[in-house]
């Protein structure tokens, strides 16, 4: 979204003085507003009305059926008092932040390596993007096997003489969260790589060559030329990964179900359990509202941090 705005602002200086006249000669008038009507109605009915409903129930003790009472802020007070819930709040933030950092670092490294030069770049791009198209639930099953006590990870560690490092990965309260993070990063690195490859394709090779002739080293060229030029890609990749990280659900449910002892519980899985398992619908809605507010705050802050400074 940052790029869109920047595009709009950078486009202005290039418009000629004939532009206003053109706008008048071709424009879709009010007469065709109904072309947008089905899309708007669908969105209002299926997203805004339901979200508003959810936000309203956040202030009630509804259980999903029957009558309910307005309970004011009681649900929210409960959220910030229960240790388990502050735990899942912390888990969500840790996962989202780790996800954001690792996908972007790995994705950028792969993109830089596969940008040009390497003979195997097309094959590797295709293969590394493969996890992106697979269902997260299928990916979770594969990794559940890898992390199993008699699974490939422990057997590899045993084979290379690191028996002491073997663990029951998903059953350990300390390690389970890291395992979930690994799976998320694994599935999305290819996606971030592709965003950065698209950005790197816009960096003219002549610019880098000129800088190299002027004696700029690799790191200097990266900092002074590549990073500023791929700024839009950075903004998009970090925004998308942040939102996705905060919403993390499928992988947690399939890998650990939030366990062991709530060690991998996130806000999204907590919402699901409160709502669909315990039928505390009002309370689940309050949690979802907290999650939504967090997502909005972080997205806005992130837009601000990665905005175009040009």
């Amino acid at each position, binding site marked *: *979204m940052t790029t*869109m705005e920047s*595009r*709009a602002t950078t486009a202005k200086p290039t418009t000629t003085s004939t532009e206003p006249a053109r706008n008048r*000669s*071709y*424009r879709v008038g*009010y007469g065709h*507003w109904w*072309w*947008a*009507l089905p*899309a*708007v109605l*669908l*969105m209002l009915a*299926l*997203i*805004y*009305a*339901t*979200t508003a*409903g*959810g936000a309203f129930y956040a202030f009630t003790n509804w259980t*999903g059926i029957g009558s309910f009472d307005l309970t004011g802020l009681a649900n929210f007070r409960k959220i910030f008092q229960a240790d388990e819930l502050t735990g899942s709040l912390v888990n969500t933030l840790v996962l989202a932040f780790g996800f954001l950092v690792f996908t972007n670092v790995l994705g950028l490294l*792969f993109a830089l390596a*596969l940008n040009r*030069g390497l*003979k195997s770049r097309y094959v*590797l791009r*295709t293969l590394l*993007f*493969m996890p992106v*198209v*697979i*269902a*997260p*639930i*299928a990916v979770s099953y*594969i990794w559940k*096997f*890898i992390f199993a006590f008699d699974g*490939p990870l422990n057997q590899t560690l045993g084979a290379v003489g690191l028996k002491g490092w073997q663990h029951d990965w998903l059953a350990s309260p300390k390690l389970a969260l890291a395992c979930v993070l690994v799976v998320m990063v*694994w599935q999305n690195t290819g*996606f971030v790589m*592709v965003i950065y*490859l*698209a950005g790197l394709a816009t960096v003219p*090779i002549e610019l880098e060559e000129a800088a*190299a002739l002027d004696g700029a080293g690799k790191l200097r060229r990266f900092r002074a030329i590549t990073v500023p030029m791929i700024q839009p890609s950075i903004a998009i990749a970090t925004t998308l990964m942040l*939102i996705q990280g905060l*919403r993390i659900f*499928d992988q947690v449910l399939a890998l650990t179900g939030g366990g062991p002892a709530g060690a991998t519980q996130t806000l999204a899985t907590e919402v699901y359990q409160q*709502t*669909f398992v315990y039928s505390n619908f009002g309370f*689940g*809605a309050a949690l979802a509202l907290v999650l939504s507010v967090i*997502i*909005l705050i972080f*997205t806005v802050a992130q837009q601000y941090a990665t905005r175009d400074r040009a």
Partner: protein
Amino acid sequence: MFRYTRKTLILEIGTVLAAVVMLMPFYFLVSTSLKSEQQVLTTSTLSFPTSPTFKNFVDLLAPGSGASSSIFHGLLASVIITAGTIIALIVVGSPAAYVLTRSTSRWSTSTYYLFLVAILLPTQLGIVPLYVEARTLGLVGTPWGMIVVYTGMLMPLSVFLYAGFFRRMPIDYEEAATVDGASRTRIFTQIAFPLIGPATGTVAILAGLIVWNDFFTALIFLNGSEYQTLPVVMYNYVGSLVSQWNLIFAVVIVSMIPILAFYFFAQKKFIQGYAGGLKG
């Protein structure tokens, strides 16, 4: 300056090794699915089976076995629901985005922002009211209901992607057609929409993947009905197997084949769809 030097070779080897590590899970997936139950228990999980067997797949897909009919039903449901959603998103989303970007009224700008904010709202907050609403309308447990639900949920994405492309598209062709006396409908269907082909491809790929792989919504709306999509079928089937990884992985592979085949067939389009669409 970009000659293939010794350094490049080292970088190439390093990158290939890193990629091999990244792709190891696929090796475990395939090798385990080709083992018999006996081999799973007796051989190392790292080894490739000495006598690979396709028995797991045959057991799974042979007509008459309990799993095959639910898998084929799941495949059919997934195809119908994904295709229906994509078509609806294109038919409803493209004219909406067209009007919103080409109109200069203040209303169209604020409506567009409504779509943008809708992308950010987490699904969980609205999901139960949505379920109650859908149940009242009789949309739960039917493929048509699912198409309506997905279309509504993904409409903001579709409008956002189309609007990005329309905004970058020069209006000269449309102007010329106006001068020649073409109607708005004609301009849209015969000029704007065909020109925006790449956007349609992007919407189809991004939305198609989301719907095809979606588990959460499908579980809530379709579980127990006869129109369960593949991820739900897989979830239920895996739930009935206790750590029989060879069978589990056979199911996982079967559920992945359609999307991977499609991906390798059109991988350039997929990657462009992801990268290009998000430039918005």
